[in-house]
Structures are given as structure tokens and as C-alpha cells.
């Protein structure tokens, strides 16, 4: 496919997504219909589509319309491409620009539009990130770096780097924590690599790994991942020697891939439903990686940014507060409640923790934040312990 034909394909797929189809389904549907497309074409199309979804607002401003065509025109203009060379109408290329398209479009207004953040959220985003809000928004217009976690139960960091290099995947150590690698070349080959299939490495953001590294874990501890989801952090926990790891999720179907992932990693994890978790309590450490806006990982899942509404956000805040209470009840006296989100928004982080502390006899021992400005996804971690004030 020519570069221009890939743009036209992106226009069509984006139109389906704007009409309500989930991005992944729209992309798979296109691939199934387009037998002529090679893997490079599919990869390029995917990049265009996700670029456009991440920067949907600013591209719509530049392209003059929030349509597939408007977004891709905006993308071309934002990337400084010569639009007339691409929108030729020749072969499978997009049709030439109409006069109103040539005249339409403008630079996005500074603030929410240029940072690709919804208007209702912008004051909260600014309050949370201060002077760096604009920059954080702009960083999230681009693709996230690919990070790997070295499975220390199977190998060490130099061993993983060497194994990956042998399969054409170049990596370098990431400073966020000592299990993290950043992929600098060959990211697309990871899923088929022996190193990945044999469990030497897992796909996991460096800050997500740093969260687990920041937990005060010691041999003999019973640890519950209370909101395990797909189990990325569960597996990172299971790689810590000497601890017993349990996984729970309010929606157990989210954990369906966890047994297979655990087997690949050679890890032992016990899955618990809510009743079982209550019976197995107390735990020495409960990690509550709560459902959140996902604002720290909108680069990876841009749809979340545009689907979030003020109403949904308020509902999330309530869920987070409830999870803190429930997780606290499962934490042993002397144990640690670790509250985490993949958000950079204060209300979901310090706000939730402060409300929890105000309501009960808990104190905060430590608090860490990661944001997209430091080259990772945005994450938050607070370590909480009970106050015992009888002597």
C-alpha cells in the first residue's frame, strides 16, 4: 500500500470508530476485509488511527472537522506533511481537498484543545499537574514507550537484554526500577519472541513495576492483589521470593488470563473470589490498585480520555473510597495497605487517601508519584498503616 492509501484506510476506520465501534474491533475488521494489506500496512494503519485518537481534539481543529477525514488531514498538518502530495485521489489515496477544506482548519487554541484534554476535565488536570499540565497533555498525544519487566524468577536484567538482542529486539535499562527495560528497537517482534513466550520478560510499564518495587515486602508475607485485573502487578509480586501471592478482582472474569500468564512466568498465584478473600484475610499487605480514570495511561488507551465524563469520574471517586475501606478490612494489624492508581489526577490520589485517613485510624507512611513527564505512565502509590494509639 502507498502511504496515501494507508491514510485513506485510516480515514475509513476512524469513521467507524467515531460512529461508536471500539478501536480494536474496527482495526481487526479492516484487516479481515483487506487481504491485500501486509503486516507493515496494518502496523502503519494502527499507528495513524491511534495517533488520531490520542490527539482527536487538536487534529479536528487543524483538519477543520471531527471526521475520519478531518482527523487525518489534521494529522498531516500537525506532522508537517505536504497535504497536496497525499490527498491526490489517485489510486487508493484520499480525494483532493475541497476549497473549504483548504481554507478550513486552524491551530488548536492553547489550553485544553492544544493539550487534547476535554474541557470539563481541564481545570482538574491543571490543578493536578500545575504548570506542567500543558506539557503532560502534549506528551500524551504521542505513542507510549514500550517497557518490559524482567522476570527475576527466570533471569536477570543483563540476561534478558542479551536474550532479546539475539532475537533482534534492542532494549536498555529503564531508570524507574531495576527490573525495567525500555525497548528501543524491534518492539513489534516482542509478542512472537522466545524471550517473551518463555516468560523471561513481561510487557509492563516501568512505573507499574516501580510500584511493586516500592512495596515493603519481606519473606513470609501473605500478599493480596485486591484489584488484580489482568494481573500485571500480581505477576510482578509473584516474582518476589518468599512471599505468598493472592489475587482478587470484583469482576473475576478480568482475571481469566492470569492462570496462563502465571504458568508462563513460573509463578504461583492463588485466585480468590470476594468471599474467599474475606475468609483468607488478614493479609500482611493488600495492594488496592483501584479502578480509575486511567489518565496516566491514556497514551495506551486513548478512548478512555474521550469517554470519561464528569459523571463517570464522580462515580469512580466513590468506588475508590469504597475499595480503600474494603481493602483496609482485609489488612492485618501491623500490615500495609498500598493504594495505587494509574492516574495523575489529585482527586483520585491524595484526595481519596486523605478522605480515608480523615475517616479512621490510619496514617500514611509513604507516597510516590510517577507522571508522563518522567518517561513512564502516570501512577500513584500511597502506603498506609493503622495507627495504634494505646500503650
Amino acid at each position, binding site marked *: 500500500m502507498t502511504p496515501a492509501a494507508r491514510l485513506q484506510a485510516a480515514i475509513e476506520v476512524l469513521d467507524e470508530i467515531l460512529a461508536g465501534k471500539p478501536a480494536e474491533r474496527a482495526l481487526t475488521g479492516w484487516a479481515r476485509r483487506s487481504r491485500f494489506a501486509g503486516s507493515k500496512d496494518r502496523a502503519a494503519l494502527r499507528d495513524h488511527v491511534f495517533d488520531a485518537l490520542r490527539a482527536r481534539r487538536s487534529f479536528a481543529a487543524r483538519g477543520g472537522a471531527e471526521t475520519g477525514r478531518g482527523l487525518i488531514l489534521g494529522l498531516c498538518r500537525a506532522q508537517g506533511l505536504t497535504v497536496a502530495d497525499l490527498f491526490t485521489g489517485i489510486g487508493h489515496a484520499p480525494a483532493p481537498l475541497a476549497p473549504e477544506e483548504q481554507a478550513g482548519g486552524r491551530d488548536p487554541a492553547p489550553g485544553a484543545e492544544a493539550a487534547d484534554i476535554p474541557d470539563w476535565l481541564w481545570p482538574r488536570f491543571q490543578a493536578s499537574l500545575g504548570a506542567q499540565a500543558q506539557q503532560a497533555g502534549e506528551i500524551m498525544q504521542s505513542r507510549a514507550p514500550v517497557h518490559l519487566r524482567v522476570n527475576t524468577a527466570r533471569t536477570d536484567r543483563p540476561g534478558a537484554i542479551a536474550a532479546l538482542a539475539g532475537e533482534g529486539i534492542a532494549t536498555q535499562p529503564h531508570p524507574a526500577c531495576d527490573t525495567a527495560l525500555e525497548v528501543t528497537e524491534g518492539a513489534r517482534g516482542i509478542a512472537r519472541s522466545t524471550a517473551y513466550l518463555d516468560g523471561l520478560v513481561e510487557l509492563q510499564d516501568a512505573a507499574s513495576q516501580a510500584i511493586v518495587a516500592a512495596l*515493603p515486602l*519481606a519473606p*513470609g*508475607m501473605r500478599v493480596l492483589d485486591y484489584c488484580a485485573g489482568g494481573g500485571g502487578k500480581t505477576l510482578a509480586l509473584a516474582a518476589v521470593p518468599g512471599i505468598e501471592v493472592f489475587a482478587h478482582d470484583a469482576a473475576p472474569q478480568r482475571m481469566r488470563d492470569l492462570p496462563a500468564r502465571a504458568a508462563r512466568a513460573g509463578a504461583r498465584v492463588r485466585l480468590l473470589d470476594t468471599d474467599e478473600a474475606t475468609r483468607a484475610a*488478614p493479609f*500482611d499487605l493488600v495492594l488496592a490498585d483501584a479502578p480509575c480514570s486511567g489518565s496516566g495511561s491514556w497514551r495506551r488507551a486513548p478512548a478512555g480520555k474521550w469517554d470519561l465524563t464528569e459523571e463517570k469520574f464522580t462515580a469512580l471517586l466513590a468506588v475508590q473510597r469504597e475499595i480503600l475501606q474494603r481493602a483496609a478490612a482485609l489488612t*492485618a*494489624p*501491623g*500490615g*500495609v495497605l498500598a493504594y495505587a492508581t494509574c492516574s495523575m489526577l489529585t482527586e483520585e490520589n491524595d484526595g481519596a487517601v486523605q478522605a480515608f485517613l480523615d475517616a479512621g485510624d490510619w*496514617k500514611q*507512611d509513604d507516597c510516590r508519584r510517577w507522571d508522563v513527564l518522567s518517561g513512564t505512565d502516570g501512577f500513584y502509590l500511597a502506603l498506609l*498503616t*493503622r495507627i*495504634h494509639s*494505646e*500503650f
Partner: protein
Amino acid sequence: MDPVDSVRSGPWRVDCLVDGGMTFGTDVFANVAPARQAELLGAAGLSAAVTEFNAYLMRHDDGRIWLVDTGCGSICGPEGGQLPDRLASVGIAPGDISRVILTHLHADHCGGLLGPGAALFADAEILLHPDEVAHWRDTEAPGAQVLKTCADRLRLVGSDAGLGADVRVWALPGHTPGHFGLRIGDDLVLAGDIVHSEALQLPDPENATQFDVDPAQALASRRAALAEIAERNLVWSGSHLIGAKFARLHRSGDRFAKLET
């Protein structure tokens, strides 16, 4: 690390091991006006009610090793939890301890049996008073957790029970229902939590913390214990003494003063 205060009584060598310490706010001694607290603390050369968490290592000449209280473990945060290091500094591994005696089930005494270090004294039997079990069993306090985790190795000891090798339980109820100290030989006593701040409570035993479960009974126990220590010229230690850990007491009327040995 600070040198360890030790004392000998017959075949027993007793080391006081400091698990940590903190400063009580004036609200802790709720029945003492802040101005009066400042005055008493000032007289002792202090600016606040400083306290420490003391545990005791008891080593018998025949090789028996007992531990009285376990410190906070991780429960009190960074202010406590140093007991394992202190034990190591006197050459004792947690597994060497055959018996843990809990004066009562407040977190700074039993916390070392919980949390990440819970396996620490896995081989020791754990002695405590039945009234303590009854008081904490159905609560959510750390003590209840200790009762659960250590259920299979608890041994209940009554108010005047002999524990062997000339060591007896010294019942001092009030602070908690099953709170006790130990009489070791004829001349040494460990008095547990009868005093939380020597600067505030020795000059006036009426001064009390809000931690006493039964304040009247706790006061009676404190008075009787201090009187006996002074009268019999015993060497004593308390779980919250600062400075010299083993001392005698001088009595004048209802006032007491620590006499460093």
C-alpha cells in the same frame, strides 16, 4: 547502638532491650493540666513526655532464654520495631527464645508477634494472663490478632503463678485486665506498664494516661507496686522507663523518686 542495661538476680541475667520510643502529647495525660505537666517535665529536665518501649531478655545460667514482651513490630511505624536488631546485638537469634511472656496485649508489647516479622519467635510458647484473652478476644485490636495467629502455642498463667526458676507472675491489673509484672528472685521486679512517664507519675502516682482500661484499679496497682518497691528496696524496671532502666525507688509520703543503682 546504645549499650544495653543489664542486671543480675541469682541465676538470671536480665537485659533491657529498647524497641523504640516516642513522645506523648499532653492529651495522653488527660487528668493532668498542661501547665502542671510542663512543670513536672521541666523538673526532670525534659520538654515533653518522652517514653521508650522496653522489652527484656532473660538468660538463665542453665541456658534457658526467655523474652518479656516483643516490642511493636511494624505496628507503631518507624518509632518502634528495633527489638530484632537489639537481640542480634547481644548475640541472640529469635529462634533461641523458648518462651515469650506478654505482660499484656497492647501493640507496643505484642506487636513483634505480628506482621512481616511474625515468624520471629515461631518456636516459643507464649505466656499471658487469661483476663487479657477475655478482654481482647472479640476486638479488632492487634492483641486479638496475636491470639489468633499464636493460638496453638498460648499458655495462660494465673495471677500468682510460678513460672519456674524462681520467677513468679505479679498481677498488676487495671492498665488492662490481665496486665502483670514479674518477680524474679527476691530482689528484682519488672513492673510492666504501671508507669508511662516517670517524670509525670513518680512524683504524683495519681497522674495517669488515658490508656488505662480501669483507671481506679490501675491507680491502686501503681500505688501498691511503687510502695512495695520502695519499702523492700527492690531493683525494678518498667516497660516505659527512660534513662537508667534498672533502679530503686525512694518514697516520701505519696511521692516517689528514682534512685539510680
